[in-house]
């Protein structure tokens, strides 16, 4: 039987890769993908615990995570599109309107 820790290690690795991707990449789209990776990583650990504790909360929870992910991607990409239409770039470094 695959011990729980393996799943958790997988989830942690994926999560770290996602974080790494968010921090390094400057392309908005790729950043969104990395966020997706992070979300999936969370799902793994949720379901892994769910399986090992024989409860179903984890699954419901990961279901919710999926909803959120979907909503997030749709709005995020809408923003990226409107930004692209406005500034013809998706490069995060040029979008520093928030500078104080």
């Amino acid at each position, binding site marked *: 039987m695959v011990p729980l820790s393996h799943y958790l290690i997988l989830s942690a690795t994926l999560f770290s890769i996602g*974080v790494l991707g*968010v*921090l390094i990449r*400057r392309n908005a789209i790729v*950043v969104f993908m990395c966020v997706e990776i992070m979300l999936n990583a969370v799902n793994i650990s949720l379901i892994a615990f769910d399986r090992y504790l024989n409860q179903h909360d984890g699954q419901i929870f990961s279901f919710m995570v999926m909803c959120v992910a979907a909503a997030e991607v749709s709005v995020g990409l809408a923003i990226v599109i409107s930004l692209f239409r406005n500034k013809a770039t998706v490069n*995060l*470094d040029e*979008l*520093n*309107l*928030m*500078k*104080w």
Partner: protein
Amino acid sequence: MSFVNLAFLVPLFPLIGSIINGFFGLKIGKDRVSWVACTGPVLSFIVTLVLFAGTLFHTAGTPYPEQSLFTWISAGNFHVDFGFQIDPLSLVMMMVVTGVGSIIHIYSIGYMHEEYSYYRYFAYLNLFLFSMLLLVMGNNFLVMFIGWEGVGVCSYFLIGYYFEKKSACDAGVKAFVVNRVGDFAFLLGIFGIFKMFGTIDFTEVMLAAPTTLIYNSEAATLITLALFVGATGKSAQIPLYTWLPDAMEGPTPVSALIHAATMVTAGVYMVVRCSALFNLAPLTMMIIALVGGGTALFAATIGCTQWDIKRVLAYSTVSQIGYMFLACGVGAYTAAIFHLVTHAFFKACLFLGSGSVIHGMHHEQDIRKMGGLKDHFPITYVTFLVSTIAIAGIFPFSGFFSKDEILYHALMDGNVIYWGMGISGAFITAFYMFRLVFLTFHGPSNVDPHVHPHESPKVMTLPLIILAFLALTGGLLGIPLIHGWHILHNWLEPVLAFDLETALHASERMLAEHGHHTSFAEVLHKAQHTSHNIWLEITLMVFSVGVALAGIATAWFFYIKRPELPGKLVKGQWGFNLVENKYYVDELYDETIVKPIVKGSDMLWKQADVRGVDGAVNGVAWVISFLSKIASSFQSGFVRNYALIMVVGFIFLMIVSQMEF
């Protein structure tokens, strides 16, 4: 006791005069201004005579009447009422102040006639008389202190009368500040007295003195020393005399009234008034005598080298007051007051005489540009000569009697050093006074051509004559040798009586209470055995007249017989330059006190205040803005930075949560 109620009138008249002149002077025209100005002092003089008559019939032994108008300050057990004390001492001073004051008022009508702000001059002069009378008549230290500072302010106004001239203004400020230094010490003296006695009323303090202050104790010495420093400030003695010569910037009648007759003698009056305290502090008495004698000698030497007619007289005033303090130092208070009175007469006459010369010579004060004015100023010359002889101390004149009495007491009660200083001072006084007379009135007339001197009008010469007469006959007040003929001594006896024996016993008792038994037997013995033999006094008199004549002779020899000799004799001598520049005392004070304070306060302001304290305050503000600048750099606008910060924060939290506290 009814006549005492008139006492408040004496200061009131000059006050009313000054208020009227002060506010309505311009409107009522010069003549009425002079009338208002002169009636004030004259009326006060009359009331003083009435009071004098009243005190004549005073029954001995009973305390002198006091009139207290209202309670001035009362805080806890500190009660001061605004009152006047009419006793022989204050009466003598009142008569001098009002008498000489009225004469000088009349004189200054003529002298100040063509001045524009004529009313302002008389307003200040009357105000001066008011404060001087307060000083003299006050029945406690505080009322005296009002007069004390009031007189200082009026001298500031009057010295700075020609306020366009920078030298006059500086002299005024200098006079006031130096007086203020004296008042600083006087204030400390008053606080000390209140701390010891719990009251500052003259009668109470003098009555309680022997049983409160222990003879030659630290408290007694300190209080009396503080009072004496206050007196030196006001009466221009050694440390604080520099303001008097500069005070000659004021109009001449001002110099006559303030810097000869009245204000400068306030210090002597205060010392005599507190004679009970000073008798208990032999150390201070010694200091007073030394300072007095020193000033007499020191100022006299400077007097020989001055060329401005009024400066010579100013230094002679400083020197003569030195004599008065010498008298107080050896305990001869009556002699001090006697010399004060005679000095008021002849010094006022000298100043007014010099004033009429200056007036006649259209404000020319340098005696090198005068000479041979004998025939141009007949009356002024005669009166000036009479007063000069008086001040030199030649036999029938008043100066002789008062100065000789001081010298006698200096030798008998003091010691040879005091007498030595006194007699050499007398010699130099005779020398420089007659030098002044010879240079101005005799000898070749080097008056520059377009100045044609003329005798002053009647209104100026009449006061001169009166004062010269008083200078001549002043001596009658204190005829020595014959017992009982010393009118002034008998008059002041009840006030100045001081029983040393009981005081010493009381001090011994008090010290015994505190465990250390000392006996003042030997002090008592020394004080009582001074015998009074006639022959010694007569020889002293003859000797002092001889010294005076010698002084006159040397002056005659230097300035009449061989006029070129003085110039040749002293040409390169460094000693002469030293004396001519007044021993560089003014410059010394400037360098050691004035400049450091000015530079110090400038540094204090620029460095300590602006850079230091303000710097600290603004520094705090700068630090906060600096920190906020760093914090704002995180707001870089790049999304990735925010993500990074979030992740770092998250990691930090996780690490912290694992740590076991």
